């Protein structure tokens, strides 16, 4: 194993983490401001990917598709917020879980109805295709580097939005005291719709960006959703900073674990057993990480609890 391979793997982990952050940020924002647990967040990720693939297929332009994914996911988020979600704020978590679980069924089967059961085609834009050579001679796909850049830029934008804009002030007020912002004369229901649509747009963006690397198909959002849960539990629910740190931690742990564990087991086990056991353990690693964080800090790394 060379240092270069290790660096490349670390970059991969970073890129994976940054994409997880886009998912986790929306989830944590919605929970922080509205106190809502949204299982259907993964469906919005899927909506983004399908919108991007659909528009890119018709226009032949990835960037138009990307814009469409933002618009479609935000619109889907706003519609869902207006019709379903806003009836759930006053309910307990149980009702929220059930209603958003039902939304997953509606989104998944609805998408399958519209687009069929076959995976859609979405490819990386030609300008970003192929690898480039990094200092030190590492060949690394340009698109993945761009993803890291976009992810970090979105993170910076979110910090700015929450830290320095009027909307951000209201979001923070909403996190601190839900009753109080009504007293401040903020139109709460509009704020909630905007925050939900913002979270949805972030998920849709992630879906479209990742969709170009992966397979655009029904159900693609669910594994990511569960990872995003792990991220925000580790980072602390409601904390954007926690989501960023948690996401990168999960990305690195998962990527490096998958790579290093079989190697580590290989030092004392025959190769086929080592890869098999190593892979089994690697698939559980992030959950073990989560359990470890919980033992030390039940409220997550940046949680308030």
């Amino acid at each position, binding site marked *: 194993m060379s240092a270069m*391979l290790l660096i490349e793997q670390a970059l991969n982990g970073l890129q994976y983490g940054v994409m997880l952050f886009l998912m986790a940020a929306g989830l944590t924002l919605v929970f922080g401001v509205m106190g809502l647990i949204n299982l259907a967040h993964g469906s919005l990720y899927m909506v983004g990917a399908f919108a991007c693939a659909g528009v890119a297929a018709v226009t032949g332009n990835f960037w138009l598709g990307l814009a469409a994914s933002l618009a479609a996911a935000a619109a889907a988020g706003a519609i869902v917020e207006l019709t379903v979600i806003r009836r759930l704020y006053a309910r307990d978590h149980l009702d929220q879980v059930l209603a958003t679980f039902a939304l997953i069924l509606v989104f998944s089967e609805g998408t399958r109805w519209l687009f069929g059961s076959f995976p859609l085609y979405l490819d990386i834009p030609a300008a970003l295709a*192929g690898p480039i050579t990094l200092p030190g001679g590492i060949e690394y*796909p340009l698109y993945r580097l761009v993803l890291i850049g976009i992810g970090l830029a979105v993170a910076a934008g979110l910090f700015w939005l929450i830290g320095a804009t009027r909307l951000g002030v209201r979001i923070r007020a909403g996190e601190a005291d839900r009753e109080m912002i009504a007293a401040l004369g903020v139109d709460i229901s509009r704020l909630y719709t905007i925050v939900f649509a913002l979270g949805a747009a972030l998920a849709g963006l992630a879906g479209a960006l990742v969709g170009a690397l992966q397979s655009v198909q*029904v159900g*693609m959002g669910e594994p990511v959703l569960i990872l995003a849960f792990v991220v925000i539990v580790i980072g602390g629910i409601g904390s954007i900073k926690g989501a960023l740190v948690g996401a990168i931690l999960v990305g690195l742990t998962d990527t490096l674990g*998958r790579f290093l564990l079989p190697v580590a087991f290989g030092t004392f086990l025959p190769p086929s057993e080592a890869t098999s056991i190593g892979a089994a353990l690697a698939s559980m690693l992030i959950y073990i990480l989560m359990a470890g964080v919980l033992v030390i800090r039940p409220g997550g790394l940046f949680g308030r609890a």
Partner: protein
Amino acid sequence: MNATKTLLAAAAALVTAGAALAEPIKVGMITTLSGGGASLGIDTRDGFMLAVQQAANPDLTVVIEDDQRKPDVAVQLADKLIQSEKVDVLTGIVWSNLAMAVVPAATAQGKFYLSTNAAPSALAGKGCNPNYFSVSYQNDNLHEAAGAYAATAGITKAFIMAPNYPAGKDSLTGFKRFYEGEVVGEVYTKLGQTDYAGEIAQIRASGADGVFIFLPGGMGISFVKQYADSGVGLPLIGPAFSFDQSIIQAMGDSAVGVLNGANWSPDLDNAANAAFVQAFSAEYGRLPSVYASYGYDTANLLLSAMGTADISDPDAFRAALKAADFDSVRGDFAFGPSNHPVQDLYVREVVRDGDILTNRIVGTAMEDRGNAYEGECKM
């Protein structure tokens, strides 16, 4: 749980006096029609029903149920089809784990099971049964084809990879069985994994001169796109599942040039196949996949047996099935001792044909291949 659609083949045609002599047969098809993986089940069903429609045999009734790719649902559907619908023959299951859940119990109750796809090693060896026929292959076959052909494709130092589950392990074993080169890397990935950057980095660093993968469904799409983008550029080979008609469109040009082991291809040169591809495309507006071809062959096998034996005489019907006296879209087709096909295995290449991607045969990997488990089958 069940998209129950009783389709009377030969719908309008009135039962003629001659046909009424034959014993009617009821077939229960359990396949995946909803959720992830539905495209495979839909192709299986469409292929099967195409043959049923063409035959227009009024004695054949088909009941189709959706297993949602859940083993427990499949088991309950099998119970329902056997207990309530009183079917004589079961078919249609796509996934090995579902087949393992359904087939032993069904054959133990004296029902016939004709596999349109899944054919796990346990059912080919110790668990074989006279009432169980695999029309498709034995699970290892397509991996074996890839392994046998790898050297021809210039792969002598292979990096091999599959998900960490039983079919994945079987696939790497199958590949290695006839592969004569060196394995420089062997990796098991998480089932359902969508990001392969880590594995691709390992491939790059391994010094391999070719890559074998078994990554069905969305996993394969993700890998191929990321692999093409990584610029590693080594030859890629796999079984047909990962590069079949239903998914290569989603891979786009990333898939062009990829080799895959198969026992059927749309361009396979025989009259039955040409007719099938033409009829399927006309009926459904898309090219058939391997699953559609297996479904089509299965229905034709069943119809051929119906023509010579009555289901009320299981021994005669079993013999009629075993004779495999039908025009397979794979050309020559015969059953081996454990009721699995003995057939030629090919290697295909993904090519672009105008607007669409499809597969083209580039060579024959093995001739008259049976399977590795025949010796264990005491039947």
